[in-house]
């Protein structure tokens, strides 16, 4: 009986602690992005770039120095990384323009950043638009799943 009571108290305490956690989630797609203020977007972009670079630099530690993952990171991921290529101001401005089209509202932020970087690097419009169409379909499917 004592064990049951202790377990019940622990469960209640856990529930209370979980409920007290502030629920601030990072933006997942354009709908979330447009709810943020400009300063929030700016600081989020700076943090995103820094976190992305940190993750790239840690891949060889996590996956091994000569692994396929590390070579992929150095070859592909660094090309699409925002760190060192665009400033936080530029990234915010690019995402603002990208999400100003209501059709892009469901595209995940990560995909939007990649598409924006490709666009800014001079990729042909047809390819970029096909990527956008694909990202729209994936975003809509993801939104349907969440509902």
């Amino acid at each position: 009986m004592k064990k049951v009571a202790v377990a019940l108290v622990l469960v209640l305490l856990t529930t209370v602690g979980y409920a007290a956690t502030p629920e601030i989630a990072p933006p997942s797609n354009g709908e979330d992005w447009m709810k943020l203020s400009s300063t929030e977007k700016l600081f989020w972009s700076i943090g995103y770039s820094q976190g992305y670079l940190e993750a790239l630099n840690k891949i060889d530690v996590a996956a091994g120095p000569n692994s396929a993952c590390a070579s992929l990171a150095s070859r592909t991921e660094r090309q699409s990384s925002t760190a060192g290529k665009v400033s936080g101001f530029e990234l915010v401005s690019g995402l603002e323009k990208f999400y100003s089209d209501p059709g892009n509202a469901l595209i995940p932020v990560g995909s939007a950043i990649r598409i924006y970087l490709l666009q800014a690097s001079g990729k042909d419009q047809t390819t970029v638009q096909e990527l956008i169409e694909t990202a729209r379909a994936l975003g809509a499917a993801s939104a349907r799943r969440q509902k």
Partner: protein
Amino acid sequence: MGIRRAGAAALGLVLLLVAVSIVAEDPLPVIHLKSERPAPDFLTPSSSVSFDGPAIVLASYPIRDEFTAPVVNAATVSAALDALRGAAAANDLPTFSAALTRAKELVDAMSLGAKRNAARRSLLVYRDVEQVWTFAANDRLGAFYDEESLPGFHDRIAADYPNYDAFMADYRVVDRYGRALYATAETRTFLLKQVRPAAPRPTPTPTLVARKRANVGRASARRPVPTPTRRAEARPTPVLRPADALVADMHNAAPVAPPVRESSGGRALVFIVLTLAGIGVLTMLMRTERVA
């Protein structure tokens, strides 16, 4: 003669070869854009494929259709202002610019008056919105502006809208060099809130003093006078101020009403009576002397 015939035959042969090659050459396949695809024939089943002619369909997806600028055909000022509000709500800059151009045309054609002033006031705000919005849409760092990217814009907006700086305090970023940057999205939001529907103004009773003040003294007319009739009633005697002095001068220059005839007629009558009395007195004096 033989050489001429040979030359003519050679020329004819060349022409014949050219004509044959033109006829025999396969024409290039017609290229159609997806947007130019002919409408499907609903009588034929959708599964049927036509092989009448070769056709290459290019996958062309313009990201932004900037070649077809939207046209706003609003007939009235209120319709144009509604179109402006709608375009701002829909985040549609091309339509917003087109609606602003149309609204300017309509407001310029309005007759002078309070309605025109109110519409022009709204257009001034919308013009500021368009400026910051166009910058945000076209500049590489358009999410924020500073003195370098939009020279004089912040000072002008802060002067025109007293609450702007207080509103933008949370959306102002200062870089490591001390350069202040202001968010364009929040600036646009702030400016759009400044546009209010024109409230019907109470029509002041036209009194003489109020009309003269409004017409003559521009500085005094610009001051907010909520109830000019009451002010005129509270101070019936004119106060000597520059505007009022000018009013007094104008009043003096105005054609003066002719003097009252009764007073001049009375004076003439008195003059005639006195003259007759004087003549009578003189006549009596002269008679008195003769008698003596």
